[in-house]
């Protein structure tokens, strides 16, 4: 039986985590993708082009203009019987929908898997990633969310999946979307960025995050934050990296004025290279950092900015 991946998208393009999900799903069987949206034909087309995708199911209906868990769950359980596994990214989107799907199927969902051991056995981080549990599901259908950073993305092109339209499942009539405050940014998305520059309580104010933004723009980086910085109101919630925020694993993670609470480390310790800048040389962040600079960030960050500018200009000239 095939594996169904629930695509996350904005009706125009796929969210990158969908590709990681397809990467994980490919270890389990033939991959189909479900695109539920409104006027979402471009997404269905892109989903069919993902390498390894055999079929795309499209439910194109105004009902799915906003991803309400109550309505999406009804759509998923309508097609579930054809699949061995239902898979979605472990983003706020997937985490909202999939447990509801599991409940309707009387299946224990498996959250945030970080490895596929076999078709019924998976690894998942627990205790903020301080332990890894190997779990086996005894349910007939596996309902799974995937930690995107743990699986390489499937190539976005090379596939030739057939596109099949399916009808909407009808409304559960329980919830209504009212609106959103969506952060607009020219910078790459936090979870997909090659470089992330994050600030913590040590930044002292939201205004001071401009220092990090300048640095980020030089490196083509996304800007993140610790919970402390979000709680203090320096930056909005969508910046938060950590156990209960976003999980990132960029090539380069620069932690500025972040002490390194367990909850923050949980969200970034799989980064390839970690740089820590902190005035407290005993800060736990240095225990996971590859490179550390001890000192006042308000001196170090502008100096780093300058040094990078010099280095990057030299390389583009060369």
């Amino acid at each position, binding site marked *: 039986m095939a594996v169904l991946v629930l695509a996350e998208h904005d009706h125009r393009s796929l969210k990158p985590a969908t590709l990681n999900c397809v990467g994980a799903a490919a270890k389990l069987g033939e991959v189909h993708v479900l695109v539920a949206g409104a006027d979402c034909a471009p997404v269905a087309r892109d989903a069919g082009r993902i390498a390894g995708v055999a079929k795309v199911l499209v439910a194109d209906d105004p009902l799915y203009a906003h991803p309400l868990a109550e309505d999406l769950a009804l759509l998923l359980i309508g097609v579930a019987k054809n699949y061995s596994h239902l898979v979605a990214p472990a983003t706020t*989107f997937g985490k909202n929908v999939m447990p509801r799907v599991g409940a309707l199927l009387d299946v224990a969902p498996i959250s945030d898997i970080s490895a596929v051991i076999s078709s019924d056995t998976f690894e998942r981080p627990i205790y903020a990633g301080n332990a890894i549990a190997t779990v086996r599901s005894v349910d007939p259908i596996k309902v799974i969310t995937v930690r995107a950073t743990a699986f390489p993305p499937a190539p976005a092109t090379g596939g030739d999946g057939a596109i099949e339209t399916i009808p909407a499942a009808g409304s559960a009539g329980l919830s209504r979307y009212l609106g959103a405050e969506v*952060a607009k940014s020219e910078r790459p998305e936090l979870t997909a960025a090659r470089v992330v520059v994050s600030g913590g309580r040590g930044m002292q104010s939201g205004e001071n995050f401009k220092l990090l933004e300048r640095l980020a723009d030089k490196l083509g980086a996304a800007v993140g934050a610790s919970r402390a910085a979000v709680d203090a109101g320096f930056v909005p919630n969508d910046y938060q990296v950590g156990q209960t925020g976003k999980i990132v694993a960029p090539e380069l993670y620069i932690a500025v004025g972040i002490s390194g609470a367990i909850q923050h480390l949980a969200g970034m310790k799989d980064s390839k290279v970690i740089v820590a800048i902190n005035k407290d040389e005993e800060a736990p962040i240095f*225990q996971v950092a590859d490179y550390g600079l001890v000192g006042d960030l308000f001196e170090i960050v502008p100096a780093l900015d300058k040094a990078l500018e010099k280095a990057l200009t030299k390389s583009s000239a060369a």
Partner: protein
Amino acid sequence: MKVLVAVKRVIDFNVKIRVRADGGGVETANVKMSMNPFDEIAVEEAVRLKEAGIAKEIVAVSMGAPQCQETIRTALAMGADRGIHVLTDAELQPLAVAKLLKAIVAKEQPQLAILGKQAIDDDSNQTGQILAALLGWGQATFASRLKIEAETATVTREVDGGLETVAIKLPAVVTADLRLNEPRYASLPNIMKAKKKPIEQLTPAALGVDPRPRLQTLKVGEPPKRQAGRKLASVEELVDKLRNEARVI
């Protein structure tokens, strides 16, 4: 209206956990236990609804070992009115917890259930969503703002892209995110008062629920360890290392 809150006893968030050498789990003997931080936020929100005259009664539910009564007492000291303890030594997973909660909802008939969005031990982030589905109720997960008006809850949710606002029909399930509120510390007089508040004890059998886990935990191991790196002397050295050693810029 009546509000149900679910509170889980977990290893305190400040404890550095130790994975048992036999692969059987995490060391819990002689480890400080507390209420799951997200559940504290759920209790606080319920208490605020009561203070605002919207909630009439708050019932705090916990499940598991006898010591879960301490967790319920914490909720009572914060302002919940009474407790329900489902006593069991079974390993409880979200699906079973939600089934037990559903049975309690059938008895208690609350208009609103507030849960923490996730427990910091198993990090599942499932119970609220499962409960809502089992009850056929609407769900508003990851709430950072909650407003109750007549038959509707208007909830602002923390999502990856920012904030989203939904309206859900009551009765409903809301799961609390970090910025919904800042939980209070219970005052000494309230801690004393909480000792006199009633806690009803039930069992899974009495509620007609089979709590056995549907996910078998085969092993719990250590994650790969990161080596601490080097402290460098200057930003120039850092740029050089990033470029020529790590090759990431």
